[in-house]
Structure formats: C-alpha cells, structure tokens
C-alpha cells in the first residue's frame, strides 16, 4: 500500500510538473476562487519551483502557506506545506471559497524579488479512479472500477445541480426584491412630490396673504 501511495504521489508530481503554472513573487499572495457546494471534499495539488529551472536553489526551505476562506470570509484552513504537497478540505457552507497561496521561506530573503512558479491543480469530489488498473486482474474488476467512477461522477453532478438550484432561488429572490423596491420607492417618491407640492403652495399662499400682495 505504501509503495502504491508513493508511486501515485510520484506520478502526480510528474504530471503536475507538466501542468499549468503561474508566477508568484516571494511573500506575495495569490488567490483563486472556487464555487463549492457544501460537504464537498476538495483536493489540491501544488508544486513550487524557482522560475529559472537551472538557477541554484537559493532558498532550499521554500514553503507555501495555503489559506482557505469560506463564503463568509472566515478562515476554514490555514496550513503550511513544503514545495510539493497535496491539501484537502471539506466545505461546510456552499458558496465561493477563496484558496490563497503565499510563499514564504525560512531564510529572510535577500532575494525578495525572486520569482517562483506555482503549478496548481484543484479537483473536486471523490472521483475514485483506482490508480491501479491492473491488467492482470480480470475484466470484471476493471468494469467495476469504471462503474464506480461513473457513479461518483453522477453523484458529483447531482450535488452541483442541487447547489445550482439553491443559487437560482437566491437569484430569483434578488430579482423579486428589486422589483418590490422599485415599486415601493416609486410610490414613496410620488407621494413625497405631491405632499411637497401642496405644502409649497399652501406656504406661499399664506405668505402672500400675510404680505397683503394677494
């Protein structure tokens, strides 16, 4: 099991090295936004490398602090990892979560302007692709595994659809709210206009009568 685990992590490293990356300065924080429904397990893999591949590693103690905020901007998770790692968290509320990455090194940097690249991959849900599709086992096992993967995919889709339904209801309520606000304010403004108009005429009439001009 441990060998398989190491093998899985190793090939994730290889694949992540070929994945998309973006630049990150030292001590700089960059965030990505993920719409996550509640009770969803989110797994993220990241790899931090110096910008120039052949530059000597000045700061061998590179690390990444991963901070996850939930839709209410409260910190859900904040942990420090090494250069290459995987992090997981489960969302408790549904909404926009902010995953922020900040590099820090243990040595106080002389090279504060050094650019680093951060490879990132974030996966949602537990798509259990068995990393060991051993061909020596019979086809039924493979079929079972594929079916399990399909079932996981369908559960993921259903979860997302339910979340979508909730959001749509919020959207509809905002629309209704705006509608009633417009109606209410239009009535208020018309009544203010009329009241003020009558008040003006009355004051001026009283004023002119008092001044004996009318």
């Amino acid at each position, binding site marked *: 099991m441990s*060998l*398989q685990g190491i*093998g899985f992590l*190793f*090939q*994730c490293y290889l*694949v992540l090295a*070929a*994945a*998309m*990356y*973006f*630049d990150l300065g030292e001590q700089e924080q960059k*965030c*990505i*936004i*993920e*719409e996550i429904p509640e009770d969803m397990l989110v797994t993220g*893999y990241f790899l931090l490398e110096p910008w120039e591949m052949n530059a000597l590693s000045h700061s061998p103690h590179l690390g990444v602090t991963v901070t996850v905020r939930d839709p209410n901007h409260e910190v859900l998770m904040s942990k420090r990892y090494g250069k290459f790692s995987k992090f997981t968290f489960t969302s408790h509320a549904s909404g926009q979560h902010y995953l922020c990455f900040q590099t820090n090194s243990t040595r106080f940097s002389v090279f504060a302007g050094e650019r680093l690249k951060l490879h*990132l*991959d974030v*996966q949602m849900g537990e798509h259990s*692709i068995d*990393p*060991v*599709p051993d*061909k020596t086992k019979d086809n039924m096992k*493979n*079929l079972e595994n*594929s*079916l399990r*993967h*399909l079932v996981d*995919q*369908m559960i993921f*889709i259903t979860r*997302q*659809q339910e979340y*979508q339904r909730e*959001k*749509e209801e919020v*959207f509809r309520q*905002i*629309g209704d*709210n*705006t509608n009633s*606000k*417009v109606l209410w*304010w239009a009535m208020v*403004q018309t009544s*203010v*206009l009329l009241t*003020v*108009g009558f008040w*003006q005429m009355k004051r*001026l009439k009283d*004023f*002119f009568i008092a*001044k004996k*001009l009318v």
Partner: protein
Amino acid sequence: MYGSFRLVLQVLSAQLLCVWVLGSELTFELPDNAKQCFYEDITIGTKCTLEFQVVTGGHYDVDCRLEDPEGTTLYKETKKQYDSFTFTAAKNGTYKFCFSNEFSTFTHKTVYFDFQVGDDPPLFPNENRVTALTQMESACVSIHEALKSVIDYQTHFRLREAQGRSRAEDLNTRVAFWSIGEALILLVVSISQVVLLRSFFSDRKTTTTRVGS
C-alpha cells in the same frame, strides 16, 4: 524484480489515468489595471483549447492574449466577454496566456478560464487491450462521454447564472441608493425653492416702504 516491474507499470498506468490533470480550469480575481499570466508546457502536435468567461465586474469584459514559446501572438482579443479558442501546438515549449484589466480604472473582474491540453484519456486505456471492447465496456464509455458533456454544460450554466446574479445584485443596490438620493434631493430642492421665493418678496417689501416714506 517482478515487484518493481509491477510498480513501474502501476506508475505508468496511473499516469495515463491522471493525464486528465492537464486540463485546468480556474476562477480568479483580476484587480483593476492588472495583468495575470499563466504558463503551460506543451509538446508539439497537441490540440489545445482555451476558453474564458468574465463572471463579475464592470462591463464583464477583459483582454486576452495567447503566445507561443517564441512570442508570436496566436490569439489576441480586447474587451471580450467570453470566447473559446482551439489551436494545435506547432512548437514545443512554454505557451503563455494573459488576461489584462488595464483598461479599467476601478472595477475588479472575476475571470474563469478552462485550458484543455490534449484529449481526455479513454476510460479503458487501449495500451494493453487484446480484444475489442465488450458491450458493457462500450456502454460505460458512452455514459462517460455523456457525463463529461453534462459537467461541461453545468459549468457554462453556472457561469451564466453567476453573471446574471451579479448584475441583479448591482441593480438592487443601485435602485436603493438612487431612490433614497432622489427623495432627499426632492425635499431639499422644494424647501429651498420656498425659502428663495420668500426672500425675494421680503426684500421688495422693504424697498417699497422706503420709497413710500
């Protein structure tokens, strides 16, 4: 020896399955006057697709630019709300794509992009096949394809809904502020009208009396 061979086989086959990692989608916030670039190493001959959509902010548009390893611009558009661009990599190396909000002075934009490199791996890898797919397996494959397109449509729908909701929220707050502001202005203007008129007539009264006496 057999154990290590098995390990290598597992690593390779797991790599095949995890090739789906090479399709990356992200949502990030682009502050005003900022530019954010992403890089990807692509081998020659791979078919890639870049798709982006602006979710919230301002006029919901952004500049996008895609360059190949030698700096030649493959795709450049200004002030686009959403677009999709497919290309086949003609060179090996690091491709770079950038989103720019430099034309905007004070609106933050949230941008979603999806960069697919290569095709998705098949459900049943063809590497070690000795027979054709059975009916069960082909049924699984077609279900898998259908589910992938469902997920794709869901993402598009989610983005559209987020965009619509952000506009609705903006409208809501704007209506509230505008209405309150207008009511206040109405009151202020009407009271000052009365005060001004009264001040006109008070002055004239004094002048007439002075002339009279």
